[in-house]
């Protein structure tokens, strides 16, 4: 009898494995004019865009995803040459990857659509002159508020410490973002420098701890939409989706300034399909394609040529069509160097 049950178990396990295998191999039959290996954030590139590119050029795209810049860096460094062609690091990670010599200098003559990108988002600290990177999508971290649950006005992160938020907040599971936001609410930089600043941040952070119901980087909007929490610190696009779903939600950009980010299209030095990578980047920068991406993922779109094409729900939503001054007054996070250990210690205390 025991043997029979073991067989049963193996059968069930085996069936699962078998069908997993099937779905993977069915689509790889098509004729193709070369390949492109795209490594990008989860929920950041609609399948419709990949299909359109494949239809137009015949180039087959293999997309894999990551959910943090650190994850991206670790996989690029340990993954071996030529596994990925195009990667989409955020601002500070672009700088780190340039410093490590991982990125290929772009051939602008093949990327004529770069002129579609709004000047304000080019030539930033992490890649002056945009030699290695072109802005793809960006955003800020802001406060999402459920108006039906919170009566008092919210203007800053320091307004989230009150009793009414006890176990009522969802925040990103991102130490730099949350520590940075608390730091800014105390009047420091998003990138605190001195030990005194870190000490002040630590005590403030522990004050915030009882108010945190959950930390979630993947989909903090779900906690807001389910009524699990009354307010939260999350990326602007998540708030934009909340606001599309229900008029109960509103976005507050903290008056002390936001954490801003910009994700950038780059090509790895070890890429095997450089020409296809250039074609793809140029394709993504086309206004009609950029619109397709914005329709699906309402991040800040730096493509000025695409703006007139975008839907009203993008243009009229302050959380997706972020005002230029909000972005200008914000701050980029910077690589912390050896201070990452400090951040990790703070975060461990905050989350234990």
């Amino acid at each position, binding site marked *: *009898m025991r043997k029979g049950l073991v067989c049963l*178990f193996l059968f069930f396990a085996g069936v*699962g494995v078998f069908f997993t295998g099937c779905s993977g191999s069915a689509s790889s039959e098509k004729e193709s004019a070369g390949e492109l290996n795209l490594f990008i954030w989860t929920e950041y590139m609609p399948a419709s865009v990949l299909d359109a590119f494949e239809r137009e050029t015949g180039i087959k795209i293999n997309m894999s995803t990551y959910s943090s810049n*650190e994850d991206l860096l670790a996989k690029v460094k340990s993954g071996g040459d030529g596994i990925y062609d195009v990667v989409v690091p955020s601002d500070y990670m672009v700088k780190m990857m340039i410093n490590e010599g991982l990125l290929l200098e772009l051939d602008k003559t093949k990327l004529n659509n770069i002129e579609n990108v709004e000047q304000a988002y080019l030539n930033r600290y992490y890649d002056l002159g945009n030699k290695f990177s072109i802005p793809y999508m960006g955003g800020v971290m802001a406060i999402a508020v459920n108006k039906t649950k919170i009566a008092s006005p919210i203007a800053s992160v320091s307004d989230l410490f009150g009793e009414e938020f006890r176990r009522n907040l969802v925040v990103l599971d991102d130490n730099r973002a949350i520590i940075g936001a608390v730091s800014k609410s105390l009047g420091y930089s998003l990138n605190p420098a001195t030990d005194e600043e870190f000490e002040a941040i630590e005590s403030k952070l522990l004050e915030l701890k009882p108010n945190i119901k*959950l930390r979630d980087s993947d989909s903090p909007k779900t906690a807001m939409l389910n*009524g699990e929490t009354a307010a939260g610190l999350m990326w602007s696009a998540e708030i934009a989706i909340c606001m599309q779903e229900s008029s109960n939600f509103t976005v507050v950009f903290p008056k002390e300034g936001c954490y801003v980010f910009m994700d950038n299209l780059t090509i790895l030095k070890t890429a095997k399909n450089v020409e296809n990578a250039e074609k793809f980047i140029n394709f993504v920068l086309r206004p009609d394609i950029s619109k397709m991406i914005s329709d699906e993922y309402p991040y800040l779109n730096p493509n000025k040529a695409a703006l007139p094409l975008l839907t009203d729900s993008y243009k009229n939503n302050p959380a997706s069509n972020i005002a230029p001054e909000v972005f200008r007054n914000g701050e980029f996070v910077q690589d912390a*160097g050896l201070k990452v250990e400090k951040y990790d210690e703070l975060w461990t205390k905050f989350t234990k």
Partner: protein
Amino acid sequence: MLFDKTKFTSKTVPLFVMVSPATAWLVLLIAIPLLYIFVISFCSTTESHNIAFSFTLKNYIKLFDRTILSIYWNSLSVSVLTAVFCVLIAYPFAYIMVKTSPLKRTLMMVGLMLPFWTNSLIRLYSWRTLLGRNGYVNDFLIYIGVINEPIEMMFTRSAVVLGMVYTLLPFMVLPIFAVIDKLDKTLIEASKDLGANFIKTFCYVILPLTAPGIFAGVIMVFIPSLGLFFVSDLMGGGNNQIIGNLISRQFKEAFNWPFGATLSIMLIAITIFLVRVYTKKGGKLDELGAV
């Protein structure tokens, strides 16, 4: 002694051919990575987040940091609770499975295994829908008038334990089922003949005889539950860190592979210690690996 050619071709060559792929597999994919983990646990990191190969003990000293110790404590208590609840649920389940008809036994087995067809992340997410503030359970309790305000069930330590028990239960049922199934029924009959009631028979005959299965199950539940960081993330909302969270964060966010390696070495040490206790008590390693 002369070189024995027949023995070489008939014994050594086949042995070499059969065993070397498995050995190569073990060396390449287990021994070398483990050795690497051990080596970098004595290293530090550079400013550009690479590993500096210079000897230091600071990672091991950091293990005794108050915050780290409290996470160990929290993690161990979650694991103990998980193991206890798993035994309490799995033992009667396995017992009934042995006693019942073959058809029902198969159905119970299928019922236990079928959820494994679904990704465990999705299964854990569904608990959020059930137990959330506006979830079905709260809605129902409010509807029938038991409570007025929703109870906070998700994102607590109890929710983490629930998630662990839910994920790991089959690993407790199977070894316990195996020992109860093998139980010599004449011993139970003898106990009854000598006038013991069911409770006495259970306590003095059945339980001692099935203890190895319980212990095997405890090991197979306790050890993974120290590392299943996604359960703590999804069910605890990230507020109830276990050792696994700490390790994954060192590798994924803090760029501190050396400290992550040190924490992993500690976890391996805990595992070896528990397995040693298990074998000392007469448990067999085979029963940990097989169903």
